[in-house]
């Protein structure tokens, strides 16, 4: 089979770090080639080089056997490359069509004409079963849909080589299996796909070969048919990882979080996004929230943490009513929050890592005196967190958060929220975008917090994660809690039934109308 793409001895340094160290990479026509590596291994950097966003310090790129100097994303598109970035690059208040044609608009008489584009988008969307509405506003559509818009953007530009940088990190299991099918149709047409993911199951399922990177260096390429998950992990992390963590029986204490009749609807709307939700989380237990994306998880978390402040009902933390309190007051009452969207809520990307690590505490006695920040303690504090949570970056505390790899950004948020001595830890998709080694570490941390007597409430779309760490599982469906389950007594299939609304647990029967 011919190589459509060859990257030879690519090196790239950033201040304080060699992100790519003489990496070579080959892509065959019609294959799905996965790239696997720890957080910060240099995967996104390599792809950004391929897409012309960074210039390599050394090395060359061959497309169909010819050396090319890729000058930038537009040039990359011309050469038949297309990339879906780790973090989406869509304009929120533009429509799907406008986003897709952005940069290559069809201009007539000085006006942008989207008529032809719209037609082509509909055709493509039908062909690949993407189900994208060309006229919807980006801000109104789900993350999974936004992902497909990114894919459409690439298809629209007739890419033959698709680069997908962690496309599944933000998707639900259903959306992931849809995406896998879409990828398989691409390769049938002779398109080639570079697929970056931390999820080994996906790689085993969709890829033909897998190249492994570690610390910026190339570790070799494996045929998927001749390898297994353990082998991949060993190559990537250099050791065996426990996918299933050992945990002792919980020693459960008093109720820490108690939610009673929490109801929330948008102004002027009848539909309750949260419908009389009641539950509790006790000290020393991990309770997780399972559900299909969009069934009220986001609203529930927002209402608990104060990002939504006009929900009715009661939210008590150690007996203290939180519902009318400000976010700061809730934080100070002992609540930690790992938010769903790390770029929107979790980080101030233009701030340094150390500033981000004190984002919830900078106002405390330790970090300020008479309103003046104490830089020494801030740096000390962040150095401690960086080493205990293994946050990798070019310049330590002084690294701008923006320049860190996605997984390391996530670790920074986790470090900040877990290290605070709070009584309740609320975590949404805590391991999104983390490598298997880091996931193992974070899960152990969460269990350690539980064993220290914290109450932990986790919302996750990943059943593996939920089964792995939970002592109890709540299922949410259309804004209602429909089941309260013990992991040992249930199964993936059964939870699936609850999540889709076809079954309800004892004590959660439908309210008589």
């Amino acid at each position, binding site marked *: 089979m011919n190589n459509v793409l060859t990257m030879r001895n690519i090196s790239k340094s950033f201040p304080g770090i060699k992100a790519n160290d003489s990496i070579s990479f080959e892509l065959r026509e019609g294959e799905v080639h996965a790239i696997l590596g720890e957080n910060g291994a240099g995967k996104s950097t390599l792809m950004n080089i391929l897409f012309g966003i960074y210039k390599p310090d050394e090395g060359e790129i061959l497309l169909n056997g010819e050396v090319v100097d890729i000058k930038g994303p537009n040039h990359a598109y011309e050469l038949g490359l297309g990339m879906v970035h780790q973090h989406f690059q869509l304009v929120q208040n533009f429509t799907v069509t406008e986003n897709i044609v952005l940069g290559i608009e069809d201009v007539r008489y000085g006006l942008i004409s989207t008529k032809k584009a719209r037609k082509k988008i509909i055709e493509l969307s039908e062909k690949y079963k993407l189900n994208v509405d060309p006229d919807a506003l980006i801000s109104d559509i789900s993350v999974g849909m936004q992902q497909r818009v990114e894919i459409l953007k690439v298809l629209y530009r007739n890419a033959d080589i698709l680069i997908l940088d962690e496309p599944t990190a933000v998707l639900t299991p259903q959306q992931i299996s849809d995406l896998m099918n879409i990828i398989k149709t691409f390769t049938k047409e002779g398109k080639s796909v570079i697929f970056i993911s931390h999820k080994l199951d996906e790689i085993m399922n969709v890829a033909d070969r897998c190249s492994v990177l570690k610390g910026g260096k190339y570790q070799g390429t494996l045929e998927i048919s001749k390898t297994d998950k353990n082998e991949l992990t060993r190559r990537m992390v250099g050791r065996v990882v426990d996918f299933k963590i050992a945990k002792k029986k919980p020693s459960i204490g008093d109720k820490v979080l108690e939610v009673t009749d929490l109801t929330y609807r948008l102004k002027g709307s009848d539909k309750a996004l949260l419908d009389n939700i009641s539950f509790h989380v006790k000290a020393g237990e991990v309770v997780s929230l399972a559900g299909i994306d969009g069934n009220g998880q986001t609203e529930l978390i927002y209402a608990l943490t104060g990002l939504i402040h006009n929900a009715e009902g009661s939210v008590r933390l150690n007996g203290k009513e939180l519902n009318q309190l400000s*976010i700061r007051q809730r*934080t100070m009452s002992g609540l930690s929050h790992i938010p769903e969207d790390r770029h*929107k*809520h979790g980080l*101030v990307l233009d*701030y340094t890592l150390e500033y981000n690590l004190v984002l919830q505490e900078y106002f405390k006695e330790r970090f300020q005196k008479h309103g003046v920040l104490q830089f020494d303690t801030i740096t000390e504090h962040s150095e401690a967190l960086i080493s205990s949570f293994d946050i990798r970056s070019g310049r330590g505390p002084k690294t701008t958060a*923006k320049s860190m790899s996605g997984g390391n950004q996530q670790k920074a948020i986790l470090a900040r929220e877990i290290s605070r001595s709070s009584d309740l830890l609320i975590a949404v998709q805590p391991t999104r975008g983390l490598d298997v080694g880091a996931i193992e570490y974070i899960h152990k941390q969460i269990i350690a917090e539980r064993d220290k007597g914290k109450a932990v409430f986790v919302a996750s779309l990943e059943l593996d994660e939920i089964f792995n760490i939970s002592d109890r599982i709540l299922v949410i469906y259309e804004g209602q809690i429909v089941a309260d389950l013990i992991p040992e007594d249930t199964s993936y299939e059964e939870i699936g039934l609850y999540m889709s609304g076809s079954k309800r647990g004892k004590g959660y029967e439908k309210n008589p109308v």
Partner: protein
Amino acid sequence: MKKILYSLRSHKLLQVYSALIAIVAGLLFGLIILIVIDPSQAFPAFNSMLFAGFRRGLSSFGNVIFFATPIVLTGLSVGFAFKTGLFNIGATGQLLIGGFVAVYIGVTMTFFGPFTWVIAVIAAGIFGALWGIIPGILKAYKGVHEVVTTIMMNYIALYLVNYFVKSSIYDGLNNRSLPVPRANIIPKFGLDVIFSHSNIQGGFLIAIIAMLIIYFILNKTVLGFELKAVGYNKDASKYAGINDKRRTIHAMMIAGALAGLAGASMYLSDSFTYINVQDSMPTQGFMGISVALLGLKDPIGILLAGLFFGYLQVGGQNMQLYGFAPQVIDVMTGMIVYFSALSLIFAKFAIRFFRLRNEGDDA
């Protein structure tokens, strides 16, 4: 060597390069205009403009400082608001209100004796702040965009000040306010000894102190931490429990105070001492936007940019000797700002020119 290269590649320095390129481009553009108007005089005039600020040594530079003082302050006002993600177009109005209050106190409240100017300056800051708070409140609690409100507040300030001048401290003969007695203007703190035979004014020290305070607030304090966080990412600030509404108001208040001080420095100097009944806005407010942009929103950068524009003003006066209208300078200033707004393009150019690579923090 590698280290130096890296620091050269850093984002901030790149911006400095592009600002410098913008200046050169703007000046060249001005030169072209001069050539178009009058080729024979263009080069001598341009030359004299370039060096006017140094021609008579410190005394010329004293004039540079005179022009720079109010625009450094309005530049700080605009730049500070920028840091919190607000566009304060209202420095003009805040300056007018502050200026009027200063003149009013200087004229009528002479019973404060030698402290009159201190009271006048402080009051100018306070009233500027009050004028700035209004758009801040509207933005924070009603979501009205500050660009709209500050522009409106500029007009209100203009007419209000005209009205107050006419109804209180009016000099009908000259259609302006009564002058502030010499004794009540801002003293020169000995600057006039260093920069002799110039229009140097003590307000410059106020500008320097204000710059230092703003630098300190932005970089060293909890307040600055919160203000910048709101400017960079409102959602994350909210998540972190920062009261972004209150901080928006604080930012506009401080911005207003700075512009108010600009008013005091302008009207309590021995070249101005009175307020005209005017039908157009004083330009120093809008110049603040240019200064803040060219100064990269950074307090020290703003000081330098203010001095640079002051320098051009002095040069502009020299141009008249060659038969050019001093407004050519305004065109150049405008072009420089225009070019610095295109700084992204220049940044790319700078990368090539200085053989840099755009990376560092710009993922």
